[in-house]
């Protein structure tokens, strides 16, 4: 038998169409390859298969009705996706879910991007034939970052598997039994009292409003309406390549100028760019690295821009606190700097607010950390997500797509391409390399950073410095970080510099971003950042003249004096069992 015939025989039939099997792990993936968006709540390609929601049902000849997520494709299978019986079963399942919780769409935080809502629409559900249950559990508002609304939970378990399998945290799990089953934080405590690191990846996969990032929109409106108050805002790099998705623009399409205009229309007095303070971070952090590397002190150095990662280290590996860069994150650096600048120019600390627009939920918690305040005023007052700011834009009725772009305010709105890269996993590393290469007079043409731009959770790159080799890793997803730490402990791997971002893919895939489900989608956002780097005038943080000016004005050198006070921090041992 020739190879060609063998290959053509390797297919299954889905709704009368032949679909080749190419190593797919289950039937569901194969059905999607045939361009049929089969409904599911509990299947995510990066999580283990749970098979609980019973929506991805198919009728396989000779096997009857099966959940396609749990079936391996076999040559010759004949599959029907939409029989009358299956359609009715799906409808019943969704109707029962709708009947068993408080799904009040109009007031829900996930309104318009809720999976339950969109599946009800997709399945054409017009009425719920079952009696509504009367049980309504109170919301858990204890966490600064995440709101839990158990009465909206459909028990798909996506959050649990995300928290444990991808993030290696395990702060939530099923508890109780049968109709009493609930998803609860460890030992039924409040979310703020358990191991949660606030990354919010649970909110990203939660198909309903049961888990969502906490909104601070009303507090921000209050600041904006306060006529005596000056309100500054900063935008994180990852926001600009994702917010457009809320306005039917392609993922990765950069909308920087439009956001600036929109924020000015909302009433912000100063619109700044977190990419500026990302440049500042690089100057501080790369300098710190060179110092540690030459002295071989507190090595390897881990990055510190991701607050969920910081929390993870403090809770589970406090012995590594000393290995973390002492640099604050760009959000906190800019908060501290803008307020200090305002005060130095004659303003009063109580009269200025700093708002940050972040792709992240953990940033909300970071801003509330005690050490990030001066004279009782927080360096960053409120944090709003990408989705949150789009809601403010919508509330004002702004036609986002047709705005005229404007520029950031100076000096803290000026950035180099290096600062923009921060939004994607590997970006901080690339920016650090651009700095270090120049300082160590390395041949830049020899350095190829393409390995840092892949979708992988662990990326590596080596730099040759004289006879020495600097081994660098960029990791995203906390399970990957945990595995790496364990390997370093046992001596299986060795690195000198390690970038860690809690969310898979980095900030472009953060919990504050419009919901995405495909890695390709997330990668488009990262590509948007790479494009922005190319279009910008400068590409190395050390070339940012406004960054240089900061040190002149503060009258100090990198990492010293006031710069140390404003841009560096310390960490706390938060291990529960000592």
């Amino acid at each position, binding site marked *: 038998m020739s190879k060609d015939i063998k290959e053509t025989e390797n297919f299954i039939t889905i709704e009368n169409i032949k679909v080749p099997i190419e190593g797919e792990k289950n039937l569901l993936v194969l059905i999607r390859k045939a361009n049929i968006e089969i409904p599911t709540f509990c299947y995510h390609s990066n999580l283990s298969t749970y098979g609980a929601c019973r929506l991805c049902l198919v009728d396989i000849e000779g096997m009857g009705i099966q959940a396609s997520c749990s079936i391996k494709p076999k040559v010759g299978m004949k599959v029907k996706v939409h029989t009358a019986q299956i359609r009715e079963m799906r409808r019943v399942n969704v109707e029962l879910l709708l009947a068993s919780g408080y799904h009040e769409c109009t007031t829900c935080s996930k309104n318009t991007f809720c999976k339950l809502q969109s599946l009800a629409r997709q399945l054409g559900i017009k009425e719920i034939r079952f009696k509504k249950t009367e049980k309504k559990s109170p919301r858990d508002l204890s966490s600064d970052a995440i709101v839990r609304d158990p009465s909206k939970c459909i028990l798909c378990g996506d959050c649990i598997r995300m928290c444990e399998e991808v993030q290696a945290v395990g*702060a939530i799990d099923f508890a109780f*039994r049968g109709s009493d089953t609930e998803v609860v*934080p460890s*030992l039924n405590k409040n979310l703020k009292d358990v*191991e949660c690191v606030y990354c919010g990846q649970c909110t990203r996969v939660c198909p309903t409003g049961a888990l969502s990032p906490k909104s601070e929109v009303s507090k921000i409106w209050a600041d904006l309406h306060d006529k005596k108050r000056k309100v500054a805002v900063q935008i994180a790099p990852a926001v600009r390549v994702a917010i457009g998705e809320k306005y039917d623009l392609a993922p990765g399409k950069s909308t920087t100028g439009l956001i600036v205009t929109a924020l000015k229309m909302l009433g912000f007095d100063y619109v700044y760019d977190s990419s500026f303070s990302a440049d500042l971070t690089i100057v501080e952090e790369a300098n710190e690295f060179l110092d540690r590397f030459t002295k071989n002190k507190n090595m390897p150095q881990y990055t510190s821009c991701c607050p969920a990662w910081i929390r993870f280290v403090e809770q589970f590996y406090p012995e590594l606190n000393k290995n973390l860069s002492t640099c604050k994150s760009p959000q906190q650096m800019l908060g501290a700097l803008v307020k200090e600048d305002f005060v130095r120019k004659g303003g009063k600390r109580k009269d200025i607010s700093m708002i940050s627009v972040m792709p992240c939920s953990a940033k909300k918690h970071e801003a509330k950390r005690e050490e990030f305040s001066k004279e009782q005023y927080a360096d960053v007052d409120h944090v709003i997500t990408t989705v949150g700011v789009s809601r403010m834009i919508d509330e004002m009725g702004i036609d986002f797509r047709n705005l005229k772009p404007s520029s950031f305010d100076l000096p803290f709105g000026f950035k180099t391409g290096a600062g923009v890269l921060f939004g994607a996993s590997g970006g901080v590393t690339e920016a650090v390399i651009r700095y270090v290469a120049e300082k160590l007079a390395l041949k830049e043409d020899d350095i190829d950073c393409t390995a840092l731009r892949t979708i992988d959770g662990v990326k590596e790159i080596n730099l040759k410095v004289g006879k020495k080799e600097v081994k660098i890793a960029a990791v995203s997803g906390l399970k990957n970080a945990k595995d790496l730490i364990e390997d370093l402990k046992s001596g299986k791997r060795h690195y000198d510099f390690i970038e860690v971002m809690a969310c898979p893919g980095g900030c472009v895939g953060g919990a504050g971003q419009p919901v995405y489900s495909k890695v390709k989608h997330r990668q488009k956002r990262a590509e948007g950042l790479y494009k922005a780097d190319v279009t910008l005038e400068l590409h190395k943080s050390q070339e940012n003249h406004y960054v240089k000016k900061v040190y002149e004005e503060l009258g100090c050198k990198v990492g010293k004096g006031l710069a140390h006070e404003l841009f560096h921090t310390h960490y706390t041992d938060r291990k*529960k069992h000592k």
Partner: protein
Amino acid sequence: MKTESQEKISKILENYSYKPEKLIPILQKVQDEYNYLPKDVMDFIAYKLNIPSARVFGVATFFAHFAITPKGKYIIKVCDGTACHVKKSEAIINKIKEKLNLTNSNTSEDGLFTLECVSCLGACGLAPVVVIGGDVHAQVTTQQISDLIDGIKNEAKK
């Protein structure tokens, strides 16, 4: 948590070689020790087994055998299986609740009794069946259950 309780639990964990897959027998032994599963104990077990405490809590609340609040000295198991139910076990349950003033909790305020409803004790011929502290009582009436409780109460007072 006290060091002595930590040592006590560590000993149990040692007997099971700190294997997470032995969580259920471990919890059984710990419950034998404490008569229920205190939260800090579950937390300690999770830490020692290197699994999330959320999982331990999930297992502990899944099985009716485990209690996360202290149980009474005497456990009253009332069978509410099909046969017992037909023979009016519900009236017995209501009588016990009324007598022990059980509203929000299944354990009486004096910590003497815990009411547990079980699905079948496998003694349908004796329906309705009640088991108190290991003693099986057959074809129980509301009057009898009332007397039994009074008897134990009087005994406890002595």
